[in-house]
């Protein structure tokens, strides 16, 4: 059992409150996943700038002076904004690949949570309310975001085992369920040269989607093919730079509720997660169909 929440704003006036709304939804889903929690949030898009969200188990040591040494190595300005065990490194778009490569060299203990123009991913072990407080999630603004509360079944309770998983530039995935063919699929993807870091089933799902997209599939097509190639139970919610999508396996035993108003589209594993959203009493509320890909874009 895990909990998923998602919020895609249509009304720009709500953007400053995105973090607060999503945090409240996330904490409501604590019963479904008290082991760890995470959030992917899509903020404002600055021209020609990109960001890497990174994590370290020794942040004091790893983040000290990282912006300066990284800037020197890649020959381009870098700013660092630290939040607890995570930090957001911002740089010119063209410098991202070089920065990623240099990070492994300069700070081997630092792990990249996400890369993109607007995405930031924060995740840690602990109760959702504590994780949200550590990263001050409720103060964040943005256009859309996805959150996850984890009750671990397929792999250890670790930061890297928490969701969301990054699936590519400005893309992420969260999952409720368990994949049964993740070991064979992991071996297949590794043979194809895909890098997979953990024993976690969802990471394999994320890597699968990235791999499909690297071979020319759109996200929608990759999600469609996941229905064929992934065995097991899943409700997936994926985030992209300008939208979010939902797909459930054909059996659809993992719960999902959606709500839409003129102001937002919202996702919750349970209706409880949605009850404090503005106008929920008059929203269109429905359960997404099995084996059907849903997508909303700005």
């Amino acid at each position: 059992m895990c909990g998923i929440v998602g919020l895609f704003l249509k009304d720009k006036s709500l953007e400053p409150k995105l973090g607060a709304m999503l945090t409240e939804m996330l904490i409501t889903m604590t019963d479904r996943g008290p082991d760890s929690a995470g959030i992917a949030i899509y903020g404002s898009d600055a021209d020609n700038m990109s960001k890497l969200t990174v994590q370290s188990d020794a942040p004091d040591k790893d983040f000290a002076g990282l912006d300066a040494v990284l800037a020197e190595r890649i020959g381009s300005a870098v700013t660092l904004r630290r939040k607890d065990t995570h930090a957001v490194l911002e740089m010119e778009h063209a410098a991202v690949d070089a920065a990623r490569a240099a990070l492994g060299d300069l700070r081997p203990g630092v792990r990249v949570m996400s890369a993109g123009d607007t995405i930031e991913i924060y995740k840690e072990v602990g109760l959702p309310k504590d994780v949200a407080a550590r990263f001050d999630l409720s103060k964040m603004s943005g256009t859309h975001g996805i959150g996850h509360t984890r009750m671990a079944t397929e792999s250890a309770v670790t930061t890297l085992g928490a969701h969301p998983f990054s699936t590519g530039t400005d893309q992420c995935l969260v999952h409720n369920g368990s994949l049964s063919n993740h070991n064979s699929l992991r071996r297949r993807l590794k043979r194809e040269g895909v890098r997979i870091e953990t024993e976690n089933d969802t990471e394999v799902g994320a890597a699968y989607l990235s791999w499909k997209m690297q071979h020319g599939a759109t996200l929608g097509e990759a999600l469609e093919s996941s229905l064929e190639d992934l065995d097991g139970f899943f409700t997936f919610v994926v985030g992209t730079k300008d939208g979010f999508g939902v797909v459930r396996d054909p059996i659809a035993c993992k719960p999902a509720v959606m709500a839409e108003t003129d102001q937002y589209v919202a996702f919750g594993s349970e209706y409880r997660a949605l009850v404090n959203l503005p106008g929920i009493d008059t929203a269109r509320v429905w359960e997404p169909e099995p084996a059907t890909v849903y997508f909303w874009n700005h």
Partner: protein
Amino acid sequence: MQTINLEAEGLRSMNAVLQAQAKDTNQTSWEIENPKGSHAIAVGLDAPIDVTVKGSTGYYCAGMNKQATIHIKGSAGPGVAENMMSGTVIVDGDASQYAGATGRGGLLVIKGNASSRCGISMKGIDIVVHGNIGHMSAFMAQSGNLVVCGDAGDALGDSIYEARLFVRGSVKSLGADCVEKEMRPEHIQILRDLLDKAGCDAKPEEFRRYGSARQLYTFKIDNAGSY
């Protein structure tokens, strides 16, 4: 009219008050305010009382109901009216998966759509859905009636025993050992009665009936020793 504010009262306390009502209670009408999608609202009731839940509910609302009439003024989460014994449960909106599962008696009315596994393993309950139902509905259904005014999803009535299934719209596919059956006058009468009780103006003649072909190994006497 007795009113309980679920947020203020708390779930266990609210259920305890409702469960404590005697069969001859004079407090026959109850309203639950602020359900806010909470789980297990109004479960295990055993008195002829009317309970109105003013909003949508989470998992297992009205489970194990006996005698009571429970009216949900919103949508219901998974397992609404699970294992109902008697009484009536009405959902104004949609119902999530396994609505009315294993129910042994009473009437469940869903005015919107029901999702997957509606009436799974039903054992005597009557279920009337004004809209559509999802896949694997009435799986291993043993007795009772499932009435669907809209369409049914994949694998309707898989491994069904003696329950009757009535569908007005399309059936995406029938499950193993489930077949269409002749609609005889007694079925029209059963259906008319159920539609009437469920406040549905559909005509019984517009429905098709489905049930067990009784061809699975469970129906073969030679296999009795396996159980």
